[in-house]
């Protein structure tokens, strides 16, 4: 972590960058937040550890409009989002100085197995959790975010320089869960998704965090109030929210895992995105959003002999 701060200070001092986009100490050790740092002094609050799951790419949309370059730290998975945003002309590559940071898996607070957590100490492979109800230990690997178990790889898709070594974290198949659901009966599928989706409180956090959900005007913005945040405007939207959102990001979702990470209700939103990704791979050829700037997107291209809709079930 010190390397990152030292390098950020150098770049600020030399005037190569006007500000730094990174993670800042939160109230507790396990809740760092996204922050802009405008001078060397403010960098004393900078952190980069297992709790820095937040993907900074989306913040570069606004930062691209600012004077001067912004130094941004991107983890391997975040770099896919950045490339995808470049492809959609939402971020300006010229306005970013990208340091690709190594990653050894990020943590999911919900997997710490404790309530009322006061502090978490990351001691190598072990997390020492102290809570209102006592102390406990969890293996780092067991508390990792789902997405890290199926990580797309530790190669940065865009960077000016890289810092810190990554470690392999993959021990699960990315599509295993989707396949498990596909094999269910329609009744089982429905029961499963109904029980998950009925937990949704429409906080819109999944949309707000999503790099692909960066439209200036969103269908989920309120038409009745001049407000971005809102409860549902119509019952249609309320019922179809997850399907519509998944479709809007189909072919553009990099599977960065942010939606599932931030959902306060623990809804496995990646299962929607990955269904589309799996279908796209199967029907239209392997495609990874954000992996390549030039490759044509699956929903804005076609082959004359594409499969017919519903062909699978006829």
């Amino acid at each position: 972590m010190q390397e990152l701060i030292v390098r950020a200070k150098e770049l600020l001092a030399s005037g190569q960058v006007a500000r730094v986009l990174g993670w800042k100490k939160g109230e507790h050790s396990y809740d760092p937040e996204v922050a802009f740092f405008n001078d060397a002094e403010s960098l004393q609050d900078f952190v980069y550890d297992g709790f820095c799951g937040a993907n900074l790419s989306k913040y570069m949309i606004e930062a691209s409009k600012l004077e001067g370059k912004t130094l941004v730290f991107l983890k391997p998975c975040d770099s896919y989002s950045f490339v995808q945003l470049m492809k959609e002309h939402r971020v300006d590559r010229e306005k970013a100085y990208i340091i690709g940071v190594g990653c050894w898996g990020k943590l999911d607070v919900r997997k710490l197995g404790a309530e009322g957590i006061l502090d978490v100490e990351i001691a190598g492979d072990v997390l020492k959790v102290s809570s209102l109800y006592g102390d406990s230990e969890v293996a780092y690997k067991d508390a990792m975010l789902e997405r890290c178990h199926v990580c797309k790889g530790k190669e940065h898709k865009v960077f000016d320089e890289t810092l810190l070594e990554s470690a392999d974290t993959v021990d699960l198949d990315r599509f295993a869960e989707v396949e498990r659901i596909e094999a269910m009966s329609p009744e089982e599928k429905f029961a499963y998704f109904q029980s998950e989706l009925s937990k949704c409180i429409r906080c819109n956090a999944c949309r707000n965090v999503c790099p692909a959900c960066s439209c200036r005007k969103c269908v989920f913005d309120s038409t009745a109030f001049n407000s971005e945040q809102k409860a549902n405007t119509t019952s249609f939207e309320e019922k179809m929210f997850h399907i519509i959102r998944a479709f809007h990001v189909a072919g553009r979702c990099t599977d960065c895992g942010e939606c599932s990470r931030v959902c306060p209700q623990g809804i496995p939103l990646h299962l929607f995105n990955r269904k589309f990704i799996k279908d796209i791979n199967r029907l239209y050829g392997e495609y990874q959003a954000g992996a390549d700037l030039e490759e044509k997107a699956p929903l804005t291209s076609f082959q004359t002999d594409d499969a017919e809709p519903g062909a699978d079930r006829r």
Partner: protein
Amino acid sequence: MPVTENWKPTIVAFCCNWCSYAGADLAGSSRLAYPADVKIIKVPCSCRVNPMFILRAFEKGADGVILCGCHPGDCHYSTGNYYARRRMTLLFSMLDYLGVEDGRTRVEWVSAAEGVKFSETMNSFVEKVRALGPNVRLGDLRCKN
């Protein structure tokens, strides 16, 4: 809604202006029968139909939604139906995955000369949806008791 012998499904058919709507016209002028409960919505091109149209039709009470367009290769705008085909393929697959509406959605390519195909398609689709009964699942997807 109680399902009786006489229950008739509400069917929405999105038809492109150039081929399928003309096909529906031909079916009508040739006096080929298709159920009166099929509500046709004319669109400029099958590609105009975004997946939300389909979902919205269900939300507004449709029991089945069918999209008809020009045969691949014959699109008035050259390639619109190819894009529509990919979108609908993914949407239908997603609905299956959620355990809703298998068989309540369909895409069929109907040319302006295919009045017979239009009428047969509608008859078979209505029958299929009738067998499935009223559409409740999509509306209940987020409503676990």
